[in-house]
């Protein structure tokens, strides 16, 4: 039930945010602070999400097969490998290290 509520609020909220751009006066978004915040926010949130998804389980810090997967993803992104290759190779590496 709570899961349903989370799904519905996320759906409604994100749809409302999209619509807000068409309604809110654009000068409010054109201040320097707003621009910088909106530019940096996705980068920092996703970085935090990556760090926690790879190096934590619950409330514990962990170094396991996921770190190997992340390392492979970083290398492949640095050499500009295609998206699908990055994801599949990272998963295969993590699965391989986990099995080992």
């Amino acid at each position: 039930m709570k899961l349903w509520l989370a799904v519905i609020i996320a759906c409604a909220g994100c749809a409302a945010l999209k619509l807000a751009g068409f309604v809110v006066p654009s000068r409010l978004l054109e201040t320097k602070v707003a621009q910088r915040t909106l530019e940096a926010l996705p980068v920092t949130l996703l970085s935090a999400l990556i760090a926690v998804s790879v190096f934590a389980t619950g409330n514990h810090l962990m170094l396991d097969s996921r770190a190997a997967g992340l390392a492979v993803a970083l290398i492949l992104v640095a050499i500009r490998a295609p998206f699908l290759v990055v994801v599949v190779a990272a998963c295969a590496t993590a699965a391989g290290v986990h099995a080992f």
Partner: protein
Amino acid sequence: MSEPSPHDHLMSDAPRKAAERRIRNRALTIGVSVTPFGLSFGAVSVEAHLSLIQVCLLSLVLFSGASQFALVSIIGAGGSYFSAVGTALLLGVRNGLYGARVNTLLRPAGLRRFVMAEVTIDESTAMAVSEARTGHATRAFWSIALSVYVLWNLSTIVGALVGNALGSPATTGLDVAGPAAFIALLAPRLNTVRMRLAALGSGVIALVTVPFVPVGAPILIGGLTAVALLLVLDR
């Protein structure tokens, strides 16, 4: 569907056809490029114990890859719904910014703006902006939007069905599908030292707080603290 562009009367048939072909090809390429992400999203969602209907609802209505992935990753890790929804909403703020840009560029009338807002995402905005000077921005926007919307939803369903058939996330390596996808998505934005430091700082702050706060909260804490630090340092 599109209003006549101010350049239309200047154009003969051949350049217009070339532009239509270029836009169609780009729309298909970009649509296909989101499918691996949609597949992994579907698979990760069922691992997080979302039902097929819930997974499909997210792709049909929320329709924004990063927010969707963050939501199910945090729920899957056992995080609070507050952190999961909060992170998804904060990641969705940028679509509002895109909306302001698309609104001034395409000037949709009446109810059409509701449909336009729903499909205002990274890809459709970038495409409309890149075609702004050619007078084909409206066609470009709707082409990409349609292509990405259809392929994103189809790949979500396939991913959810396939993910159901797979084993645990650790044995299949699916536990790094999200992080790997995000690394690939972030890479183009990490083109300055400033952004790289912000990304690194955010990750470190999040990890430091992991043992002390509820699961999921470190993502909000890391992300927001890093932005605040960046704004202070910029002064």
